[in-house]
């Protein structure tokens, strides 16, 4: 257990100040990569929903599989405690409704909060307007919270991992994740082919 040093902050190897310093560094690198991959363009992001570009699912899928691969390797080496990584609890119905709304908002705006922040950094004026809308939307949520809190806190299954559902351990979850992400990318490639049949692109 002496080798189990990761994550650094949760295991007491990092001061609060140092953790905030790394927050800035990790944010800068994240924003940098978002710009380099074109995630700062609402037209590219929304192009996903018209099967014009598959960059978004390709990058998201590869990101998830890469991060998960590192988790599994470091956990196998005994250096990382996966259970210490912050994972939001699963609220089934709030996530279904929240997800449907989130997708609706994304096809209207072409951004999600993270990509809009990076987009604002690149000078996108629609990203700025989007973020003003986000601030206004937060205000709306605070106002309606007393009325929606019962629903928002319903169907809470706690922290629920894939292997809690399908059996096995973290390795099972990893394999399911790789299969899911790979099939999503392949399936979307197929859909794009069908959607663009007969078009000169």
């Amino acid at each position, binding site marked *: 257990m002496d080798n189990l040093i990761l994550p650094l902050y949760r295991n007491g190897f990092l001061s609060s100040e140092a953790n905030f310093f790394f927050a800035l*560094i990790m944010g800068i690198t994240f924003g940098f990569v978002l710009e380099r991959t074109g995630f700062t363009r609402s037209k590219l992001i929304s192009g996903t929903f018209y099967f014009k570009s598959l960059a978004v699912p390709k990058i998201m899928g590869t990101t998830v599989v*890469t991060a998960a691969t590192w988790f599994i390797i470091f956990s196998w080496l005994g250096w990382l405690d996966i259970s210490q990584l912050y994972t939001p609890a699963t609220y089934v119905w709030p*996530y279904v409704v929240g997800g449907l709304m989130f997708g*609706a908002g994304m096809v209207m*705006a072409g951004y999600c909060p993270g990509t809009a922040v990076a987009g604002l*950094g690149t000078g996108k004026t629609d990203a700025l307007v989007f973020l003003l809308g986000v601030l206004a939307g937060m205000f709306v949520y605070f106002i309606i919270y007393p009325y929606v809190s019962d629903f928002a806190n319903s169907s809470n299954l706690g922290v629920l991992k894939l292997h809690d559902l399908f059996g096995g351990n973290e390795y099972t979850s990893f394999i399911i994740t790789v299969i899911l992400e790979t099939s999503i990318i392949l399936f979307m490639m197929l859909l794009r082919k069908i959607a663009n049949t007969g*078009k000169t692109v």
Partner: protein
Amino acid sequence: MENEIVKCKKYWNPYVGGIVMGTLLFLTFAIASQGYGASGTFARATAQFLVNQDASWLENAYIANYFKHSDNALNNWTVIETIGILIGGFLSAVLAGRFIFRPDKAASYSLTGRYFWAFTGGMVVAVASRLARGCTSGQGLDGMATFSVGAWIFMFATFAGALLLSPLFKKQWVDDEQAAPKKVSLKEGLNNG
């Protein structure tokens, strides 16, 4: 004009971008014990703004939650990280020669319409992110990478929601395709003629 920009500096290959982003996400988790986030920053900023105006906002159960651990809702890891995202996007755009003040949309779509939907979409996304306890970063990427079932529910629902409404917003995003075939048919016409 957009073609010129795309030509002068190529974007990264998506798989290469994903490997870099995934490794950074792993490092973030390995250091901070938590992953990326963004929507929480805007909820906290709004909460702090309201409390600054009138302390009675603290009676709101949702806002009160942000002041449990600190007097300032912005004294938070994700808030600092979000400032980093802004700086990172700016640095990358400047270094790539891509920094330019402009909106992103289909060429023929009106600017007013674009800003209207950007604002409205932002409001919808904000409310949705509170119900879903995160956005595509904090819930989607972080959750899927840590094998959370909830993240998958959220992502499938997000994609479904976007696909369902996508026909209504096609004009905003997809350039009029009749322009291209017309040119081809004109060319064909000339060749045939």
